[in-house]
């Protein structure tokens, strides 16, 4: 579990980007946690605090009850527990051949090479990109690069993975595949924290939500709770997912996903 205690962060001691945030991520067995907020609400700053790239101006972060240590060793330990995949894939791929890049973190962990090969293959096949194994990065599509970037972090086998805008630039098919992939990771026992501007994607993918605005947590809860307040979402430049809209405005039941809606409604007809 990740616990934030009165966490504040400011780049310049004037504006607090994060302002006294206290929360427990992953309590009650939440598997996929979504952070929502408009551009500039502080999502990225929060993520960078979570992986120790930024050190809280005040307050602290506890991982499984232990406060994060900002020594080299402490940070390394933290990053084995929490991995992060950034939005721009190009900036996190250092090798030109897919399998080399995915193996990078394992080499850094001094894993023996047979073991590395095994784990790389496993991760690549989980991400459906085993066929790209020997391919040069520069000729992959945006969606494929995204997968390689995720593979490079997944291979560490950390308990938590942070995904920043995992669907940006993907076509509808890539988006659905991303959804399935996250489900797969969860089934493997990994826990995901993600942020996205795609409300429908968030709604269908996450099981717990935090709404971030002005550096504070404005609301948290499950789907019903967080997406219920149209006014609050509007104020934060967000929108309701369409499944919530048709529930509220057309009086249909609230479904968890499109599939569920159509499966059940088809039975009715």
């Amino acid at each position, binding site marked *: 579990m990740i616990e934030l205690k009165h966490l504040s962060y400011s780049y310049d001691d004037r504006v607090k980007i994060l302002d006294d945030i206290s929360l427990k991520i992953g309590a009650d067995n939440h598997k996929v946690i979504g952070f929502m907020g408009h551009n500039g609400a502080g999502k990225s700053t929060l993520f960078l605090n979570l992986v120790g790239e930024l050190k809280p101006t005040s307050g602290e972060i506890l991982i499984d009850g232990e406060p994060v240590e900002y020594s080299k060793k402490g940070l390394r330990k933290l990053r*084995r527990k929490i991995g992060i*995949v950034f939005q721009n894939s190009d*900036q996190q791929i*250092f090798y030109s051949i897919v399998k080399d890049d995915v193996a990078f973190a394992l080499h850094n962990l001094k894993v023996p090479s047979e073991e590395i090969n095994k784990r790389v293959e496993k991760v690549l096949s989980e991400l459906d990109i085993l066929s790209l194994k020997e391919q*040069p990065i520069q000729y992959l599509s945006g969606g494929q690069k995204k997968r390689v970037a995720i593979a490079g972090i997944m291979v560490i086998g950390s308990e938590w993975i942070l995904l920043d805008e995992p669907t940006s630039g993907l076509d509808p098919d890539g988006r659905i595949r991303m959804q399935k992939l996250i489900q797969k990771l969860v089934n493997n026992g990994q826990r995901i924290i993600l942020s996205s501007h795609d409300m429908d994607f968030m709604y269908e993918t996450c099981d717990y939500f935090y709404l971030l605005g002005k550096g504070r947590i404005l609301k948290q809860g499950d789907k019903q709770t967080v997406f219920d307040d149209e006014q609050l979402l509007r104020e934060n430049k967000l929108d309701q997912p369409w499944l919530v809209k048709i529930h509220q405005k057309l009086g249909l039941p609230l479904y968890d996903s499109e599939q569920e809606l159509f499966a059940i409604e088809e039975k009715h007809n």
Partner: protein
Amino acid sequence: MLSIDKYAYENRIVNWSPKLKALLWLGGIILAFQPIQWLKLAVLVVVATITIYVTKVSFRRYLSWFYAIIPFVLLSVIGIVVTVSPQRSALIWPIKFVSVYIGMAKVMMPKAGQMALQCMTAIVCTYWFALTTPFIQILQVLKAARFPRVMIEVTMLMYRFIFIFVDAFDQIHRAQKLRFGYDSFGLMIHSSGILAKMLFEQVIINYEMMTKALDAKLYDGEFYI
């Protein structure tokens, strides 16, 4: 811009050992430098034919890689043969200039011809090597040749980053062009300056983000090769 790189990954002999390919290249270069002229010509024709076959490149595209360099070969040839001489008979196409003649030295003609042939043969051999050997394999050759580790690491990273910069370059250049940024010499200089500045900013932006990504990947100061 880097079309050669793409062929290097897709040719018929991509899986040959890079060390073997490097040795074959060396063999070709030795043949280009040996003194028998007809052998050079034979090597040129054979290697060019093989290159087109194994890379499945169209003849036109193959020729296009020579357009940029032929002017320089010609320029050098001119530099070798043109001379000033008091004797008209020593020159081809002599032009009288005050009391001397300017023209092409007869004695230098064979030498210039040989140099041009040798140059073309060597270039064809190097193209063969470049078009059949992905850069990743060349790193292996450098490693086998015992180049220092840090140099190979930097080379490997540079190879990856070049494509990021080429992308950025293309996008910026295209956007400038479509807003008429290259319509005259003055504008071209100005726009090139902006382009260079923007690419320079990319160095810093990428460095910042990559530093974070390296932390996430538990980087410890060494890139394994």
